[in-house]
């Protein structure tokens, strides 16, 4: 047989199922937990640690006191037993969410804005939803501003109309050149807003909600405001910076490089101090420049520089052939970027962008350092300093971590889902 090398197969073998010992849960346990002596020992050790943590933590969690007016009262109820005083959460829940100065009878306004936020973000996140919902998305910044800050509805409506007016002017002048359209649009919008300032002052009573100044904002609401505004602003700015850094025009490229490198080289904390203190020296005396607005500008600058670098990575990962194919079909720069390059580069950059967004959202707690009372600021300041709740650390910071974790984990899960949705290249 061995010297006969000619072989012809006449019938194809049918596929057979794997042997039973190679499937099921027992196989998984044996392979992953008890594959050898060392792994078995480690598995048992790990089980022991889980048991000890559960024994210590679960009673503390489950026997916790949810209803008490102060830490002292809580300790009396516990009577020497060790358990959590979660009463501080129920007692100060509204303060944790809204800060301690937001008018109590107006809590429905930020709550409503929060619910509307989901409805307006949904069509951006899920492309299968009807495109008409984008109208709500476009209107949301103005609705949200009106609900949270209050005042007359005329002001946000006029600001929105200013954008519309600017866009109309842009389309009128764009035929001459893009730059002419852009500059005339900016001038038109600025003139419109200047006039609108007088109009809204005159109509300050129309559909007015009780105005709440920025320094009264606080709690988790402040983190969410800063997080959503800064993420949604820094993504488009980051894209422009990344494209600018690739530009062949030396001035644009230079500006983008200097901006990105400078901002990345400076700690966020110093930028926030600049926003809080130093910026006032540069502004003409007497101008009041809203603190939240200043903080938003600084955080946006900071994160857009990071996002720009993430997107630059995505742009660099695209084969040169994609640019050439787009060029060879006669697409102009804007078209090839929008239709060919950015959809692919952004898809590659999703993990990095989400990384920056999650980091940014958590970094919003840094504003507590410049004496703004966000969630952490509320805990460190008014709540822990109060005589009732002085000394409740675990429960408060645990709850704060939990709130942040929910949001950040949600963002992360969404991004993984989105990556799977966009996986069309079948590599």
């Amino acid at each position, binding site marked *: 047989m061995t010297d006969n090398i000619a072989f012809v197969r006449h019938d194809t073998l049918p596929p057979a199922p794997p042997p039973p010992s190679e499937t099921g849960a027992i196989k998984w346990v044996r392979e992953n937990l008890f594959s050898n002596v060392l792994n078995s020992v480690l598995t048992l050790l790990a089980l022991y640690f889980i048991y000890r943590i559960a024994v210590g933590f679960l009673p503390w969690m489950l026997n916790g006191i949810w209803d008490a007016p102060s830490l002292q009262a809580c300790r009396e109820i516990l009577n020497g037993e060790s358990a959590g005083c979660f009463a501080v959460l129920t007692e100060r829940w509204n303060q944790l969410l809204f800060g301690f100065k937001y008018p109590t009878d107006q809590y429905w306004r930020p709550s409503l804005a929060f619910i509307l936020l989901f409805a307006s973000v949904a069509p951006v996140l899920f492309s299968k939803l009807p495109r008409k919902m984008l109208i709500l998305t476009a209107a949301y910044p103005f609705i949200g501003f009106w609900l949270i800050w209050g005042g007359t509805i005329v002001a946000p409506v006029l600001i929105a109309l200013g954008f519309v007016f600017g866009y109309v002017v842009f389309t009128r002048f764009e035929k001459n050149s893009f730059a002419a359209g852009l500059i005339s649009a900016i001038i038109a919008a600025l003139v419109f807003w200047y006039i609108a300032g007088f109009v809204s002052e005159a109509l300050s009573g129309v559909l007015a909600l009780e105005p709440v100044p920025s320094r009264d904002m606080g709690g988790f609401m402040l983190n969410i405001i800063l997080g959503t505004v800064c993420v949604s602003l820094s993504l488009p700015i980051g894209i422009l910076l990344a494209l600018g850094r690739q530009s062949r025009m030396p001035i644009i490229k230079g500006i983008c490089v200097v901006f990105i490198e400078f901002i990345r080289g400076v700690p966020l904390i110093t930028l926030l101090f600049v926003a809080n203190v130093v910026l006032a020296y540069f502004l003409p005396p007497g101008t009041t420049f809203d603190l939240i607005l200043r903080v938003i500008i600084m955080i946006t600058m900071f994160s857009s520089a990071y996002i720009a670098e993430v997107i630059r990575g995505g742009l660099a990962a695209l084969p040169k*052939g994609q640019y*050439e*194919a*787009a060029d060879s079909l*006669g*697409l102009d720069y804007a078209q090839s970027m929008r239709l060919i390059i950015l959809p*692919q580069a952004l898809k590659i950059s999703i993990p990095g962008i989400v990384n920056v967004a999650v980091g940014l959202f958590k970094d919003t707690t840094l504003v507590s350092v410049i004496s703004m009372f966000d969630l952490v600021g509320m805990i460190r300041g008014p709540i822990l300093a109060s005589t009732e709740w002085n000394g409740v650390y675990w429960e408060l910071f645990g709850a704060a971590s939990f709130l942040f974790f929910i949001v950040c984990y949600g963002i992360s899960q969404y991004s993984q889902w989105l990556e799977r949705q966009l996986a*069309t290249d079948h590599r």
Partner: protein
Amino acid sequence: MTQATNMQVSDEIAINIQGMNKWYGQFHVLRDINLTVQRGERIVIAGPSGSGKSTLIRCINALEEHQQGSIEVDGTVLSSDIKNIDKIRSEVGMCFQHFNLFPHLTILENCTLAPIWVRKTPKKEAEEIAMHFLEKVKIPEQADKYPGQLSGGQQQRVAIARSLCMKPRIMLFDEPTSALDPEMIKEVLDTMIELAHDGMTMLCVTHEMGFARQVANRVIFMDQGQIVEQNEPEEFFNNPQSERTKLFLSQILGH
């Protein structure tokens, strides 16, 4: 050549390159290129790697910039004006070695994208045109798939269809079969041959000498950035004049 019905060359000049030079830094890639292409001509450009053949055809649609001399495509002189370049690019189709399909778009979207955005064709009409050309390259059933799901030969045929959807008057091929498995080369060459029979003006950088013999009316041999020899295919293959050409032909036809 029984079906060679439409393969006449007209007197009209499609491409006119005069005294063109190009450098990469200090390196002189293209040296004094003079080339006139009549409408309906099928030109095959051959030569060793690094001889500047790809660079030459990439200069024609301004994917590469040339530093000296003039290039005139369909009566439009190539200048640094972007509007001018975009106009020429929309008239000149190009197929690449690595296909360069857009992986995030379906086959149909790949084909309709440029007509919709550059030519402002209504979407429905663009899809009809796209299906027409996908049928021509014999893969209409793949229209809703993504490029990654297709074989190399199919992808290259889609790339040809994508270019044709812009109704170009000139087609450039940059080594369209050299990234393909041997089994798939024929299907792409068949598509190109059919295109030639339809009277398309074609410039092909390729090593497929059988294709050159069958379709080309002129073969250009390049070496070290210069046009060394050009002739009708029969003469070129049977009776090469320069030593360099003889050596090249003996190497690629030697086995």
